[in-house]
């Protein structure tokens, strides 16, 4: 419970500066898309995408439903292969370099919380799972079945599982989409906090414009299979809702609504 409070507090009052500043880019993976196209059947989903993501960058991919933003993430994860072009994640091919956090959590219901977090880790590295669970403030729930946790707690376990192997790239597929507004705000703070400490490259897919403005170094707006907007966000961190963030929000919304049907 104490650690839950701590992460909540560090989010509410970041000016204390609990998190040590990360070693920029040292722990992140660079990503390169070269002329990537993907279609399902005859329907093109992504067309001729060229994109370079710098190590340690926090990229938020935003777009309407069916715009191809989830496909972009699945290509990155290697869950889909591009029809043409290449997705390059560099020379490092270690099994722990990349993790995904899904919207529906995807915890194994037949494994205890701690075993879910340790999934895929060698037995000798179980301490890392414990540390990861600690970092999301759920160390005291290690022995529970996932079914007794709330939606927000399940997503924190999923986040801990993604963090446990100390990956260099974490892909977040609308991870907060199913949470209530207050829990979502807490989780955004937690994700930013952990990202600042660890320095992994983060790619987050969302349709929440406020979330994008709050978290992103760089916002990619995907529309009709292409990158319609590539916006750098150079606001100081940790960020809180305010005029500067609101202005970014407004710009994205305006761009999104321009293509609104009718």
């Amino acid at each position: 419970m104490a650690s839950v409070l701590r992460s909540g507090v560090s989010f509410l009052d970041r000016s204390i500066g609990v998190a040590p500043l990360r070693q920029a880019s040292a722990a992140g993976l660079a990503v390169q898309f070269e002329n990537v196209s993907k279609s399902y059947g005859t329907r093109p989903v992504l067309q001729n995408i060229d994109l370079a993501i710098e190590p340690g960058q926090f990229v938020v991919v935003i777009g309407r439903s069916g715009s191809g933003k989830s496909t972009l993430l699945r290509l990155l994860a290697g869950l889909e292969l591009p029809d043409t072009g290449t997705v390059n994640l560099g020379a490092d091919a270690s099994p722990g370099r990349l993790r995904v956090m899904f919207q529906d959590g995807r915890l194994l219901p037949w494994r205890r919380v701690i075993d879910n977090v340790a999934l895929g880790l060698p037995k000798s590295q179980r301490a890392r799972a414990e540390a990861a669970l600690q970092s999301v403030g759920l160390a005291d729930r290690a022995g529970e079945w996932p079914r007794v946790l709330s939606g927000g707690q399940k997503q924190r376990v999923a986040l801990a599982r993604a963090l446990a192997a100390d990956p260099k790239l974490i892909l977040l597929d609308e991870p907060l989409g199913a949470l209530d507004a207050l829990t979502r705000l807490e989780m955004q703070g937690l994700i930013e906090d952990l990202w600042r400490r660890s320095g992994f490259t983060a790619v987050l897919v969302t349709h929440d414009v406020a979330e994008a403005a709050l978290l992103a170094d760089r916002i990619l707006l995907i529309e009709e299979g292409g990158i319609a907007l590539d916006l750098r966000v150079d606001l100081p961190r940790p960020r809180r809702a305010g005029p500067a963030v609101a202005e970014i929000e407004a710009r994205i919304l305006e761009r999104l609504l321009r293509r609104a049907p009718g």
Partner: protein
Amino acid sequence: MSARRFWPRRRRAMSRSPFGIDALRRWRAAAQLTSRQSRVFPSLLTWLVPLLLVLAWEALSASGIVPQRKLPSPHSVVVAFWQMTRSGELPRDVFISTLRAAMGFAIGGGLGFAFGLAAGISRLAENLFDGTLQMLRMVPHLALIPLIIVWFGIGESAKVFLVAVGVFFPIYYNTYHGIRTIDAGLLEMARIQGLNGIQLFHEVIFPGALPSILVGVRYGLGIMWLTLIVAETIAGNSGIGFMTMNAREFMQTNVVLLGILLYAALGKLIDMAARRAEQGALAWHPSFARA
């Protein structure tokens, strides 16, 4: 036993029955009227009806209304049980029947699991033999008895083979089905976490298919007894089935009745063990969670 523990257990049992949720509601409404008594003596109440039946039966036998030769009295069944236990006849027959059941179950269940696993995991294996097995599944396995007698005679292997065939299909089908219905999202997640091969099987595939596999096991246990009774009744010179058929020739109806009660008791015992195993293995499952 407290009321808190009593109610949920009942509810689970009812929701699995074919009568559904409406029957459950009616049952609860009716039970509510006598709730005070049923909370105090739930286990006594369960035994009340069988006890009354046995007493009535004994009274009818003693008064000669029901002839002993058609339906022997309960106490003569108990006497038969005691005599045959002392002579060693009964333990020997129970042992040989249990051995046959266990061997048939192990062979049929093992093969069913192996084939179900193969068909569930590999499309190639599925295409190769699932169609054939689904066709064979429709053949009532007891129809094979004439053929099996030609192949194996009336010895041990015939009985074990018949049990194995009977047990094979429910376990095959439920293993296969259990693996195929595992959430694809969990498999995708596990692969991203770097699992494959044995680890994937151990962490995701087996535990994911286990609820369905255990349904197959319980179904298979029922078929196991049924098959064994038929096989022992038709041919053989040992086992509970033989004991009852032999007794019929000498008009020892109390021994026939004893055999039937033994099947009931053994069947119930094994079902209880299976249920206990289910509760242990599926503690994570909301339907099996203890209150």
